[in-house]
């Protein structure tokens, strides 16, 4: 192993973890190679080349989307890299922290993969060289711009000590967690949603949506699209957090004799109620507008959303209870 790498414990740890992961899962590397070959095969399909040719004719939208996504992920990576400087097992060492390399490695790898991905349809003859050059320039420029913006973004300097999880309790609730019952479980996914839908988080998601709007979109339309996107994001966040918390709660309650049905109901009912409440407001506001058929469409979507949530929660809880 090179002396350069040995003197950089953060990079060395990453390299060894990757190498050990391959050792532990012998199928991992062949699976990745197989996946890449499959992707290359799909990229060689003529329709993909045609699609990329169209994208190459409107380079602003892909540039903005890629740059924004790269900026957001770089900013997030910056926060996590700086956090690792205080809470990693290597934090007490007087060794180089390799911040820049750790931040640049992932986007560089993504960029290389994207550039190679564009090369496949060119080799297959479904994408013109001029189109490919435009796309290569767009992708490279977007990644460089996104990385610089993400790098310059201020990171959260208020990182506390390891395992700092002081919860901000706004008001004490006297009516729950006082008597034995599973009801407090329902607050867990809701709390998780509150974290994942903070304005700081949703703003970056909405940024993509707004940036991808075609030029000339009206203000009212933009606001409506942003609001609709936020609602979809919130509904999805509810489902995702219910799934995640189902596994964590099942593991936590593994030593108990809690049964599937009360567990699922306790965990999921507040999520479903929150979705009902949100969808209800959307349907009410939608039907109050001039848009014909909003009520019927809204009700259909609400029922579909609630049903899919119920199924999601039920399936997640079933797997969670089995896997614990």
């Amino acid at each position, binding site marked *: 192993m090179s002396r350069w790498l040995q003197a950089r414990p953060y990079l060395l*740890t990453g390299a*060894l*973890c990757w190498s050990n992961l391959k050792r532990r899962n012998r199928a991992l590397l062949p699976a990745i190679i197989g996946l890449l070959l499959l992707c290359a095969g799909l990229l060689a399909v003529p329709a993909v080349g045609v699609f990329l040719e169209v994208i190459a004719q409107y380079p602003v939208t892909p540039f903005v989307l890629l740059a924004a996504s790269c900026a957001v992920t770089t900013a997030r990576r910056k926060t996590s890299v700086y956090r690792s400087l205080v809470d990693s*097992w290597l*934090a*007490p060492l007087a060794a180089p922290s390799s911040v820049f390399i750790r931040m640049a490695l992932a986007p560089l790898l993504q960029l290389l993969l994207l550039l190679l991905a564009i090369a496949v349809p060119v080799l297959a003859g479904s994408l013109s060289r001029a189109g490919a050059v435009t796309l290569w320039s767009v992708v490279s420029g977007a990644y460089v711009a996104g990385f610089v913006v993400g790098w310059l973004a201020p990171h959260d300097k208020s990182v506390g000590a*390891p395992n700092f999880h002081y919860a901000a309790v706004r008001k004490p609730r006297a009516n729950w967690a006082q008597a034995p019952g599973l009801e407090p479980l329902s607050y867990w996914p809701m709390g998780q949603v509150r974290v994942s839908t903070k304005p700081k988080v949703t703003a970056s998601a909405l940024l993509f949506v707004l940036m991808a709007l075609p030029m000339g979109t009206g203000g009212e339309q933009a606001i409506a699209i942003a609001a609709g996107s936020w609602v979809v994001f919130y509904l999805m966040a509810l489902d995702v957090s219910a799934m995640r918390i189902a596994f964590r709660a099942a593991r936590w309650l593994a030593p108990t004799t809690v049964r599937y049905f009360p567990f699922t109901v306790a965990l999921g009912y507040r999520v479903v109620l929150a979705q009902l409440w949100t969808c209800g407001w959307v349907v009410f506001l939608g039907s109050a507008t001039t848009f014909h058929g909003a009520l019927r469409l809204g009700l259909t979507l609400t029922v579909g959303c609630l049903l899919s949530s119920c199924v999601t929660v039920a399936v997640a809880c079933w797997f969670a209870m089995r896997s614990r």
Partner: protein
Amino acid sequence: MNTEASALTVEHLYASYEKHAVLIDVNLTVARGEWVALLGPNASGKSTLLHCVAGMMAPKSGAVVICGHSLQGDPRAAKGKLGFACAPERLPGLLTGRQCLEIYAAAKGLPSIDADVLQLAESFQYLAMLDRFVDAYSLGTRQKLAVLLALLGEPQLVVLDEAFNGLDPASSLALKHHLRARVSEGKCSVLLATHALDIVERYADRAALLLDGRIAHQWRKDELTAMRAKSEEGFEAALAAVAVEVESK
């Protein structure tokens, strides 16, 4: 205060988590070749103080000087003198114990893993676990590895946060003897946060009680020895008395 002569000097240290003040004007010195035990009830700020000493948390104000090097001014030199046992759950699960030791040794610029650390690993009966992945370790085994990492490279100040938790009695005794021998030979100083009063009574040179973010009381070596000789529950009773006294104030 002569910061050169002491292994650790903490002066007027304030630390908080957002608005929640945890350390309020903490002053503490650990002399070279001294074992100081840091006591205190849960959530009194022991771990926060140790994290400030290890440079893992930035204090609001105050100074931490390790062997004459300011942690704020010259963190690399200060951390070079420090051995800190990280929390067992922080160890990387995808590495083996040997790889962890090798990474630490390389980062500290050691040509090989210290012989006395390997000897301690043998007394821990840890050698058989060296090539297993950390995520397959029990809490006690992780704790052993964390301690071994802290002791690599003969650091002049060893900082341990409840490092005896989870250790089996034989390993715990081996560690106590190892640390005592190192301290007695003047190779290092130890700052240990612990709830184990037997360590304070038998092995520590000094004990400091942290209450509500302040050093409420300190006991010298002779006081500890006298209390041990006095009765079976000498130090325990003294600790309780001080806690009650501080509480009533």
